[in-house]
Every structure is written in structure tokens, then in C-alpha cells.
């Protein structure tokens, strides 16, 4: 009995971190997508991007709410979203990249969602029912995000010279943030040993295959993997741009910390 309690205490901290990572990816990318609202290249796309933003922010809400519960210090999802500074955010640097042009936003979404479809497929069988439920719900939504962004990668890549060149540039610029998708540290190691979360290395071949296939169909070149790859988001290293995003996202709540609406 004592042993059981001991092992439970051992995994609650990494599990909290794990949920925070999943939640922060979605909160930050969801906020980025919401910046398109009212600026989409056409009405349908404006709606699509607002919908994707809502899905991601909704997923973040569920994950951060649960993270707060697991942490057990009384922090709500709003406390976690609005009252942490950039060094406490655990999102991928990929997720915080500024929107750039439409092609850049689409390429970012495609790389992110393709990874998450694979991850959520595994997490939906997680023994923790709450995480499994959130994952299986998020997976349904993520499949739409993959199809939406993939369609656009094909259309832009195999479109005009300019659209081809611009989305190729987007993939070239984003590539240095893709290694971090598969970043693992002791948080993952403890939970993997516990048999509860997937080893991200195992997702990489399938991710490569899916990305390669789409790039090929879109007549695009896969950027070189042998280049500087950024990491650090998972332990709180972020770029300057995240600060501006947080300032906009958090200022109202911080100005009126007791407000209810």
C-alpha cells in the first residue's frame, strides 16, 4: 500500500508537467489562430481559422483545468493561462511563431496537427480516463485540422509560382522548430516507464512519412534536417514574440484579477 502511494506521488508532478505541455501548445497556437479572425483571405477561411482556434483553446481549457486538478494547489485553468509568465509556459516554439502570411500559418498548422494526430491516437487509450477522454475528443477535431491544412498545402504548393515559392519558404523557415515535436526529457521518461504515455521517437517515422508524402504531392522540397534545430520550449525557453502574445492575452485579466464575467 505504502509503495503504491509512493509511486503515485512520484508521477503526479511529471503528469502535471505533461498536461501543461499539451495544454500550452494548444492555448498558444489557438491564440495565434485567433489573430486571423476578421483577416482571413476569404470568408470560408476566416471561419475555418476561427473554428480551429476555438477547438484548440477548448482543448487547452480541458487540459489546463485537469492540470490544475492534478497539481492540487487550487489553480484553475484561468490561473494557469493568465497568471504565468513566459518562462513558465511549456509550449513548443513552433506554436508561438508569429502568423506570417497565410501559407506560413497553414504550414505551421500542418506540421503541428500531423504530429498531434499521431500523439492523440495513442493518448486516447491512456489508462487515465480523463486524459483519454480529452484526447479522443481532440483527435476528432485534429483530424479536421490535418485535412484542412493538408488541402491548402497541396493547393498552394501545386498552385502558382508565387504560392509555391511562398509556402516552400514557410516550410524552410519553420523546419528548425520541428525537431522539438519529438523532444523528450525526464518528464516523458518517468511516464513512459510507468507505461502510460507514448515514446515520441516511435511517432517520428510515421510523421516523416506523412509529411514527406504531402510535400511530394504538393511539389515541395523537404527542408534539410541537418541544420540548427531549436528546442527549449518544453522547459520555458521562448522567443521574444511569446512575450507580446502573452501581454495581449493576459493584460485584461491581470488588470482586473477579481473580475467575473
Amino acid at each position: 500500500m505504502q509503495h503504491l502511494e509512493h509511486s503515485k506521488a512520484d508521477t503526479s508532478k511529471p503528469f502535471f508537467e505533461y498536461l501543461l505541455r499539451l495544454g500550452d501548445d494548444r492555448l498558444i497556437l489557438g491564440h495565434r489562430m485567433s489573430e486571423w479572425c476578421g483577416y482571413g483571405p476569404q470568408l470560408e477561411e476566416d471561419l475555418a481559422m476561427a473554428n480551429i482556434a476555438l477547438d484548440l483553446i477548448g482543448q487547452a481549457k480541458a487540459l489546463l483545468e485537469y492540470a490544475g486538478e492534478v497539481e492540487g494547489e487550487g489553480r484553475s485553468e484561468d490561473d494557469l493561462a493568465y497568471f504565468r509568465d513566459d518562462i513558465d509556459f511549456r509550449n513548443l516554439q513552433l506554436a508561438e511563431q508569429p502568423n506570417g502570411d497565410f501559407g506560413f500559418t497553414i504550414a505551421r498548422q500542418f506540421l503541428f496537427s500531423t504530429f498531434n494526430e499521431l500523439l492523440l491516437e495513442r493518448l486516447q487509450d491512456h489508462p487515465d480516463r480523463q486524459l483519454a477522454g480529452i484526447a479522443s475528443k481532440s483527435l476528432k477535431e485534429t483530424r479536421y485540422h490535418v485535412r484542412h491544412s493538408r488541402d491548402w498545402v497541396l493547393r498552394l504548393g501545386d498552385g502558382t509560382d508565387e504560392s509555391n515559392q511562398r509556402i516552400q519558404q514557410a516550410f524552410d523557415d519553420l523546419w528548425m522548430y520541428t525537431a522539438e515535436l519529438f523532444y523528450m526529457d525526464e518528464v516523458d521518461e518517468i511516464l513512459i516507464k510507468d507505461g502510460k504515455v507514448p515514446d515520441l521517437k516511435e511517432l517520428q517515422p510515421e510523421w516523416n512519412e506523412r509529411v514527406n508524402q504531402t510535400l511530394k504531392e504538393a511539389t515541395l522540397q523537404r527542408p534539410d534536417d541537418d541544420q540548427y534545430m531549436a528546442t527549449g520550449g518544453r522547459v520555458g525557453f521562448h522567443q521574444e514574440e511569446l512575450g507580446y502574445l502573452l501581454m495581449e492575452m493576459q493584460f485584461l485579466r491581470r488588470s482586473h484579477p477579481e473580475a467575473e464575467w
Partner: protein
Amino acid sequence: MPAASTETTILDYLKEVEDPEIPVLNVVEMGIVRSVELEEDRVVVRITPTYSGCPAMNAIEQAIRLKLVEKGFTNHQVRTDYTHAWTSDWITDEAREKLRNYGIAPPDERSIEGRFTELDEKVIACPYCNSIETRLESKFGSTACKAQFFCEGCRQPFEHFKCI
């Protein structure tokens, strides 16, 4: 709490609560209300969102609370339950017919091992004229749960409630 209340009678009351975005359906036939339980003298209602980011969830929770108070259940709790992901499979045949009459092409199939046919590969009949000369305009409509179609038969756009 009113005497002789049972979970079934309370569930019937909740059928009077409309879905704020699709008012022809109530929150029970939409599958949003997952359970009603009596815990001593408290009513506990579990709800689940159709989509993670469904912006109507707060309004739905409020409407359920108001209905419970109206029926005399002041001691209540509405909890959001994430353990089972909502699926369009929970929309009953009767509710699908209501959707069609309302002008929304309902989910056209039920899942097999959790999967549906890809939206691009589907033929969705127009809810207005029943023509199958329709085309997908966008996988996302006015809300995340719907996609936009256009009907060549009656030259009108319409929405389709997606299978998820």
C-alpha cells in the same frame, strides 16, 4: 427538492432546454446531457461539449441551471464531463429529421469502429430540395460542428451537421 422526483422526471424537464445554436433540438436529444443523478438532496447533471471549443457551453449550463431552479431544484450542480468524447452517433433519428426540416443536412451515417467516411467523399442531400447535386464548400461552417455545402439543384448554400 420537489417530492417524488426521479432522475427520469428531471431528465424530462431538461428536454425543455433548447440548444442555443440549434433551437429545434433540446440539449438531451443532442446528447449534451450525459446523466442526471440524485445525490441525497442534490441534483447532479453531467454535460459534455459537442466540440472542445463550443462557445455555447456556458449558455447551455446557465439554461440548465435556470430550468432546475424553475422546477424547484435549487440544490444542484452541473459538471462538465470529458471522459467520453461526444459523438454525432448520439443524435437520435428523430432529432436528425428535425434538423433536416430546420434546413440543416443531418449527420448521414453512424460510425464504424469510431470512424466515418471522409467528408470529401460524401454525397450529402440538400435539406431543401433533396437534390444530390451538391458540393462541399468548406469543412468548417458557422460553427465547428457544421460544414458548408452548395446545392446545384436549388442554387442555395446549406449547412451539414458533420459526423464526428
